[in-house]
């Protein structure tokens, strides 16, 4: 069978987080920094879902393939999935706010380069 599913998911998620951190640290354009932030966000979601996987488990939805009685024995842990829905919404909100700040910064400075924005407000 090779690598277990949760291991593959964990590696993918952590790789996404690393790419995002690199994007934030190496790029000077605010939009690219925001994209890096979204990548970190997505990576964390993948990692969170991966930690909910139980060997041999299936989606926690009762249907013809998964009876009411054996749900507790055959389904994966539903709690990380429920938490990730919350996390996705919060991640979307943060991205939206960051993008609107970026637009306002561009209006004020006519540039998206973070090195050009050096003045502190207080």
């Amino acid at each position, binding site marked *: 069978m090779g690598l*277990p*599913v*949760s*291991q593959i998911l*964990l*590696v993918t998620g*952590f790789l996404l*987080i*690393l790419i995002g*951190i*690199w994007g934030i*640290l*190496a790029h000077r354009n605010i939009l690219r920094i925001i994209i890096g932030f979204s990548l970190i966000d997505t990576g964390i979601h993948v990692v969170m879902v991966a*930690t909910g*996987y*139980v*060997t041999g488990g299936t*989606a*926690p*939805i*009762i*249907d013809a393939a998964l009876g*009411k009685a054996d*749900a*507790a024995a055959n*389904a994966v*842990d*539903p*709690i990380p*999935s*429920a938490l990730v*829905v*919350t996390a*996705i*919404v*919060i991640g979307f*909100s943060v991205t*939206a*706010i960051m*993008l*609107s*700040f970026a*637009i*306002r910064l561009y*209006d004020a400075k006519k540039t998206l380069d973070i090195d050009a924005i050096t003045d502190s407000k207080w």
Partner: protein
Amino acid sequence: MKRVCAILAVLMFAAMFLGLVQAYSERQARSPLAEYYLTQVPRELGAPNVVTGILITYRGFDTLGEVAVLFMVAAAVGVLLGSKKEQRAKTSSTDGKGPSELVRTGAEVILPLIFLFGAYVIMNGHLSAGGGFQGGAVVASGVMLLILAMPASKLDHGFLSVTESLAGVLYVSIGILGIIIADGFLDSHVLPLGKFGTLLSAGAIPLISALLGIKVGAELSVVIDRFRS
């Protein structure tokens, strides 16, 4: 120098993550809380989708807070981007080229399907993968396509905010109704459970799902429309 520091930081994170991955062994058993949810959601709430049951009933208060966060984001984006409207309108009208015929005709064919699929995802949240947030996001992506294909179209913000507020008020009233006739705030037992696995079952969960879908769809549409400069 900066680049070296960045590489160093990424490498250190990589080492940390490598340790985490190597030490992680796949779980063989569910936690007691997960087992409780997996048995109680189908039995007590009558919802086949355990995740939706957790989100809307057991963690209903959390979901209400999430919707409040979305509302605040819509308001904040409005404050940040809404003030200089006239100037924005001027800049956007100058680069006059509209979308290609392909996009416009494609949008006319696909848009109804996207909205239909959004409604389907919203209404089947308690039966299969889906729910209010997901369906609302699908509807908002349809609105995004509408904005891209027909840049001249105007979204009626007044109508959207009234719809959204009504959905929010109804959502909270269902929650308060839960205190009065069921076991607590946002308890889904205010409506009869119905037959397991049918569209109108699982108490108030489909209703709350639909309200959430309307609210999220309207809020995301407003946010997307604000970004159109």
